[in-house]
């Protein structure tokens, strides 16, 4: 793959590698990472490609080293990334909190595996809370993309770098292990940056052009100062919620019940939807693409006219909370959650849809 990258063409690529190539195309100058399954192909890919491009690749001493190297590289104004999987992501949380606080643009990837603990290396989405609520300390957010196929892994990696720069904050892809490991055809679009990305000249360190010494920090001992900083962050977050919320709706117009799912789950849900429609159920699909900002408003609107929703996720009721938060008690939000590598079958989902539709007025269908 490496010799000549056929930009603009269709290629067959592994999800992990597609993210790597997208990062290279998007001008990522440094990759820092520590091996962990199921994202190793990304690290391996970067170890070759970054050096080919004369850029920086370090296999770090640990995940903590990696995220803090990102902090340094972002502070001098260069694009950089790291990637890991669940246990490694937990170790990065302090660093992510620092990056959010210091308003530095860093893009990273979590190819989610089964947890908690060492767990297993099977696909999972159980780091949803950690990703969307800030597994690190303090009041902050990370923009989280939940792609559904290899093409989106590629595209959202590019977008991830751009929105990181646009809003000066950490952004990430949360991908279940299937997405990281699978191969699909994808088109290697040329990288086109978002228009009007802000210049970094006024804050990046080590630039001889800046007259006065600059400071990058996450420390503000004085309380009103720090409080204002956090409020500024939250005002930025509100703007992001307005601008960057992404989702997809399929066949929700006439639906009696809507499936809510992201990542690989959304694809299985879609197959289940098709099967269920064949069986006569009026089923729609709502797919959050950004997990933070979560598409609460469109979901809430949907809840005004749909009586049931069935959340399908590779975790035990994490995104379920966001759906319930968005919809209040306007609709019945059922849950089909699997964990630790368990994958819902298409038929299971159809069965759950039926059960949900048949449920009594105050009963919520849940499989655990």
């Amino acid at each position, binding site marked *: 793959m490496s010799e000549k990258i056929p930009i603009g063409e269709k290629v*067959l690529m592994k999800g992990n590698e597609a993210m790597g190539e997208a990062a290279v195309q998007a001008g990522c100058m440094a990759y820092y990472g520590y091996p962990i399954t199921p994202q190793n192909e990304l690290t391996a890919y970067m170890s070759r490609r970054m050096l080919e491009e004369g850029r920086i690749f370090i296999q770090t001493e640990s995940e903590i080293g990696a995220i803090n190297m990102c902090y340094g590289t972002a502070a001098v104004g260069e694009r950089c990334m790291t990637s890991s999987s669940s246990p490694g992501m937990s170790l990065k949380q302090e660093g992510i909190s620092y990056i959010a606080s210091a308003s530095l643009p860093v893009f990273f990837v979590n190819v989610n595996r089964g947890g908690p603990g060492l767990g297993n*290396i099977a696909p999972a989405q159980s780091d949803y809370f950690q990703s969307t609520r800030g597994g690190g300390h303090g009041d902050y957010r990370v923009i989280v993309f939940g792609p559904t196929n290899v093409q989106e892994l590629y595209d959202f990696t590019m977008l991830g770098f751009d929105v990181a720069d646009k809003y000066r904050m950490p952004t990430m892809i949360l991908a279940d292990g299937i997405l990281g490991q699978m191969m*699909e055809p994808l088109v290697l679009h040329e990288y086109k940056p978002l228009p009007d990305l802000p210049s970094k000249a006024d804050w990046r360190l080590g630039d001889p052009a800046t007259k006065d010494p600059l400071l990058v920090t996450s420390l503000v001992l004085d309380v009103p100062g720090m409080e204002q900083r956090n409020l500024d962050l939250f005002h930025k977050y509100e703007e992001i919620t307005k601008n960057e919320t992404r989702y997809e709706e399929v066949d929700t117009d006439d639906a009696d019940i809507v499936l809510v799912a992201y990542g*690989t789950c959304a*694809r299985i849900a879609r197959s289940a939807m098709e099967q269920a429609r064949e069986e006569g159920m009026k089923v729609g699909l709502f797919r959050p693409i950004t997990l933070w900002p979560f598409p609460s408003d469109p979901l809430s609107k949907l809840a005004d006219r749909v009586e049931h929703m069935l959340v399908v996720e590779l975790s035990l009721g994490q995104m379920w909370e966001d759906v319930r938060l968005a919809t209040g008690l306007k609709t019945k939000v059922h849950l089909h959650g699997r964990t630790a590598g368990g994958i819902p079958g298409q038929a299971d989902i159809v069965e759950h849809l039926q059960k949900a539709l048949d449920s009594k007025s105050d009963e919520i269908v849940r499989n655990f």
Partner: protein
Amino acid sequence: MTQKIRCAGFGGQGIVLMGRLIAYSAMVEDKHTTFFPQYGAAMRGGTANCSVIVADCDIAAPTVEEPDVVLIMNGPSLDKFEDTVKPGGWIFYNTSLIDREVKRDDVNVFKVAANEIADEVGSSRSANMVMLGAFVAKLRTIELDTLLTRSLDAQMHGKSERVMELNRKALKRGASLAE
């Protein structure tokens, strides 16, 4: 048309390569495809398997619960996957390493003495190609020609011409079984 395929065998039998070749060929033929290897801890000595879907429309679920076709290279894999095949589907299996018969009677069965044929061609390491050739010729999910002219080169580049030639021969011999 959507065809779900699972390849399975020992680690070292080139199972993942089979899947990749199918997926790559499908792409070249402008079909939709997804390929997913069963990945494991990097410890050895287990079975390997992967799944491929080939379709002429968008592929939703990339997971293969009930394959339409299984390509089985050894005994433990037959034990594991025989029951999963969709009624009316196909079981291709390697009689060189599998003594027993398929038990089900609601599926099509195609026997391939893959290792023996590969040995004849020049190396039993090409047994996977023999199997692949048989499958392709029988079901025409993808074209043999695509494999020979495009996919092998793309997915195995770096291999010596000798190996490539061996693989091509094995593919053709496999295909001839089904013609």
